[in-house]
Each structure stands twice: as C-alpha cells, then as structure tokens.
C-alpha cells in the first residue's frame, strides 16, 4: 500500500520525504484546494521545487485541485491544471466534473485521482467517473464501514485510496454545507471548513468559550481541554441535554487495520492534515512508514507496537482516536 502524506509547505514536503512517504499531496496557495488557510500551501515556484525534490528521491507528488470551480473564475482552476501538467506532477486530485472533463481532454497523460470531495461512495459512481474522465484512482469518503470499503474496492473499476489517519470528517465529504451555513465559507466552494477567520475565543471568569461567526460552539471548564471549534464537534443542547450531538473530538486512526486494508486490495492510505505542522507530518509519516514496513516483513503476524499508538494518540484531537465508520458499531 502506498503511503500518501500531506504537506502544507515546502518544509513539510522535505520532511515527509525524509520520513518515508511514498507520495506527498499539496495544494496551491489559493481557493482551488480544500485546505485554504492563511500562510499554508505552495506557490508555483515552490510546487516546481517540490516536484523536483520528490522525483529526486523517487517519490510521487500529487496536486489537489479539489474545490468546485466558481462561475466566472474558471481560469484559476485551469491554470492550476496546466501547471500540474507542465511541472510533471504525478497525479491531479480533482472533484469537479467540469474540471475533470477539461483536464482529461487537454492533458490525457496527466493521471487523475477523484478527490474525496467528489463524494463517490459506491462502484457505480466510480464507474461514472472512470468511463467519462478516465480517473485512475479514487479517494473514498470516511463514511463507509470496512465491509463496505471491501465491497467497493472489489467492484470498483479503479484502485481506491482510503484515509488512514487524521481529523475525522463525520459527514460524507463534498456533501457537507454545515460550515457555509454558519460562516459563509464551505469546503466545496471556498476551500475551508470552520475557517480560522471566523473563530473567536472568549473568557468569562474561568470559563472559556469558542465561537464561530459568533455562534457558540462550546464552553470549557478549567479542567477541560479546549479544542478548535470545528462546528460538528461542538457541544450543543438537544432535548434539554448538553452533549456532542454530532461528533466527539477524536481523530481517525486505522493503523491496526493495515492487514485488513491490504487484504481488501486498498491501493493507498492517506494521512489527513495539510493544515498541520511539519512536526505532525514527520511523526505521523514515520510511524506509518514503520508500521507498513513491519506489515511487509511480518504479514499476518503484524502487531501494533505500543509506541505507534502513543505517538498517534498524542497528535489526535482530544488525544482520542477512533476507527470511525470503518468500525460498524461506531456508526
């Protein structure tokens, strides 16, 4: 299985390569990708350097151009595609069918991966993208159980990539407008969920409140660990009860599923977190490299080593990890 790691900067690209990533995915510094955060991502010159660095070490570099094209501004997305083709990027990660059509016609040799934002959860949807645009891989949304992933992988016309570690998106990616409902910025159009610019922290005595566009997402007592106000992870009131009505703060971690994912025929495991620090990229990549190498060496005798779990838990939201939807009872 290919290990696909995130990088939000040239430094992170170098670190991911050093730590053992097989492929690194990046985005450009504009609204053409779904991690548009201030100070993050690469410009054209840095992208060229990143491709050079990756290829010098025989690794692959993917470019995510995975937001939906805005009417009247299509040139920006088309320029990103042209840049990828010109610089010899190894795959373009795309969600928008208009852009997939453009890329597949104009640059037939540029491999296309269907972004998780394309929200394809079943073999027929994948067949649609394969037949019309010749996609060569698809990233599956984090809503499927392991049995469902197996079914999709078996019947899919293209290899599938799944998320292995990182922030847990509980909604089908590409089909969530919660962020734009509260803030006006959505992953699909603007490239950001619960954007930092809309966050406000407020202290009232001992209590710390987090707000998103002035909407109260959570309140923390001194002994509680205050997390970033990703809106689906807030504490809300339902029928008089205060609770995490949608999802607890926790990160996805599937390291103990490696043998099963391999058996299913999953082509690649993706690490989430282009918005995270180079230190995060380093630790997660190194841990997963070690785990995948251990699996390659031991096969079915594969055991999860305690220090992997400790490292990954330390990088997780609320220090909690979960198998998410892969584990049916979680659903």
């Amino acid at each position, binding site marked *: 299985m290919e290990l696909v790691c995130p990088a939000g900067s040239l430094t992170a690209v170098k670190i991911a390569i050093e730590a053992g990533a097989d492929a690194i995915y990046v985005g450009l510094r504009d609204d053409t990708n779904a991690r548009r955060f201030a100070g993050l991502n690469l410009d054209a010159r840095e992208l060229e350097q990143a491709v050079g660095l990756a290829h010098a070490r025989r690794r692959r570099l993917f470019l995510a151009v995975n937001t*939906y*094209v*805005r*009417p*009247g*501004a*299509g040139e920006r997305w088309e320029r990103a595609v042209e840049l990828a083709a010109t610089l010899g990027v190894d795959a373009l990660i795309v*969600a*928008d*069918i*208009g*852009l997939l*059509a453009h890329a597949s016609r104009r640059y037939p040799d540029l491999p296309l991966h269907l972004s998780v934002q*394309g*929200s394809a*959860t*079943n*073999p*027929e*949807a994948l067949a*649609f*993208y394969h*037949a019309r645009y010749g996609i060569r891989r698809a990233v599956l949304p984090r*809503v*499927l*159980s392991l049995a*469902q992933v197996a*079914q999709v992988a078996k019947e899919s016309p293209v290899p599938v990539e799944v998320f292995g570690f990182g922030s847990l998106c*509980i*909604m*089908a990616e*590409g*089909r*969530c*407008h*919660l962020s*734009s*409902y*509260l*803030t*006006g910025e959505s992953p*699909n*159009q603007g490239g950001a969920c619960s954007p930092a610019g809309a966050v406000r922290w407020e202290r009232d005595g001992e209590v710390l409140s987090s707000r998103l*566009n002035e*909407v*109260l*997402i*959570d*309140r923390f007592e001194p002994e509680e660990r205050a997390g970033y106000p990703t809106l689906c992870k807030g*504490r*809300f*009131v*339902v*029928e008089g009860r205060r609770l995490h*009505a*949608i*999802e607890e703060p926790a990160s996805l971690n599937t390291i103990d599923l490696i043998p099963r994912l391999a058996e299913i025929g999953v082509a690649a495991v993706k690490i989430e977190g282009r918005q995270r620090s180079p230190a995060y990229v380093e630790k997660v990549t190194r841990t997963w490299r070690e785990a995948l190498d251990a699996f390659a060496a031991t096969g079915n005798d594969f055991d999860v080593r305690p220090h992997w779990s400790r490292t990954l838990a330390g990088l997780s939201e609320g220090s909690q990890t979960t198998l*998410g*939807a892969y584990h049916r009872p979680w*659903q």
Partner: protein
Amino acid sequence: MTTAIKTRSDLRLALGPVLFFWPKDTLLDFYSRMVELPLDAIYIGETVCSKRREMSRRDWIALAHDIAGASRARVILSGLALIEAASELSNLKRLCENGEFMVEANDMAAVRFLAGQGLPFVAGPALNLYSGASLAELIACGMQRWVPPVECSGATVAGALAELDAAGLARPEVEVFAHGYLPLAYSARCFTARLAGRPKDDCGFRCIEYPAGVAVDSQEGERLFTLNGIQTMSGRIGDLVGDLDDIAARGVDILRISPGLDAADVVATFDRVRQGGPAPEVEDGCNGYWHGRPGMTRVPPGIRSAGADGLA
C-alpha cells in the same frame, strides 16, 4: 443566446420529496391533499435513509400513479443521496428503470443508470454542480433540470447559466430550494439513533417520532441545526418568499417547497406572492445563501445579493 428576463409570475411551484420519516398513513393522507394544490411538479421518494421502509418501492410507484391521476403536477421519483450498501445500489437501479416516471438523481450512480438508458433526469441538490462546465457535463448525460446545491448564491446560479449561454448550450430548467429546512449534510452515523442511545443497525426507526426532525440548539439557546436520521438540516427554515423578483431575474424557473406537515399553507403563500401579492413578513426563516452570505442569516427585502464574484 438570449433569454427573456423572467418575472416572478413566470415562476412555477414544485413540492420536493418529504425528507422526514412519516408513517405511511400520514404520508398518503398528506399527498391526497397535495394533489389539489397549484403545483407543477411533485417529487416523491426516500432520499435520506434506506432503512425507512414504511413505503416499499411498489408503494411509491402506486403513489406516483395516484398523484398523476389526480393532479396536473408531473410526478418525479427522487433517489437516495448517500449510497453505501449494495442493496441500496440495486434499489436505486430499479428506481431508475421504473419505465414511467422521471427520476431525480442525487448521486452519480443514478446519473450513470439514467444516462445508460438515455433517459432525461433532474439533477438534485445533493449533486455538486456549481459551474457552467459541470452543468455541461450532465447536460451531455441527459440532465433536463438543475436543482443547485442549497449553498449556491443567486450570483453563482446566474453565473453558471451565463457560462452555458457563452458556450452556446441550451439551459436546463432551474429549480431552487425556496422553502423548508435546508438539507446540509449526510453522515455515516445516524444522529437520531445515537440520541436514543441505539446503534444504527438497531435504530428502532426512531426518526418516525420526529416528523419535523430533532432541534439542536447552542448552549445559548440559539437554534442551529435539525437532525433527521443521517441527515443534518438547517436550524432555521430556508425561506426565499421575499426574494422572488431577484430569483426570477436570475433565470430560475421553479421554486421548490420542501414539505413539512404545513406544506399546503406554504404553497398557498408562494402562489399568492408569485402572482403579485405582498410577501409576508419572515420572522425566523433564513435566506443568506441566496445572497452570498452565511446560510443562517436573514437578508431583509430590498438588499440585493452580492455581485458575480461575490462570496460564493
């Protein structure tokens, strides 16, 4: 290509599929009243959760015939949005092969089934179509009507249509989500079952107890969301009744009323306003998306939406 500027009296009304889980008797009784209303289209079918089996596929088809026989409205069958299991896929396939009624596709799997048979279809709000180029792709597959994602602004809708015009392609009909709780997200997890402390696989069909969903408030008592099984909806009701002139001017043909149990009153109000009646005061509803703002906001009448490249 020139398109005549439309006015609000050109707008037609459609009744979207019931997004909630209602008992069969409630549902059949509801539709027996809907056939009397001035509707151009009635969408029926389960779009949220395949476990909801008060109505079998045969029941839905029988209902489609009943409505078609009693109303001038065109009956359209809406397909499931989030398809995970093989059984859901085969059900969707059979729906697409019903041989009589047009289908609203809410997943690319449905597009594939329908395009494979050369059948025209409606692209529902769960398909991510935001631009002229993406519309052109589905027009080539047989899309006849476009229901934009609920987060689309009027500027985005008009901009996408202008791109089609520039490419020399005929526009599809355009239907916007004009009233009702906005379907915002689909999840692996069933929130209603979770609230009841039950696993999804043994949910006890608890959403049947919530004919208008479950309210989610902030800790300050602000209504934020509405839970409806695996679907998360807006906390406020989306309501564009005060925006009909702008909606018509931007090239929209049809207004979708997403039904609650009071749908007859809502349809009557929209019917009155499209014929020139005064728009009622909207107190709790939201229309931010149409104006390029956060969806939950309420933009008062008289303030027009952002420009073509405004906040999308």
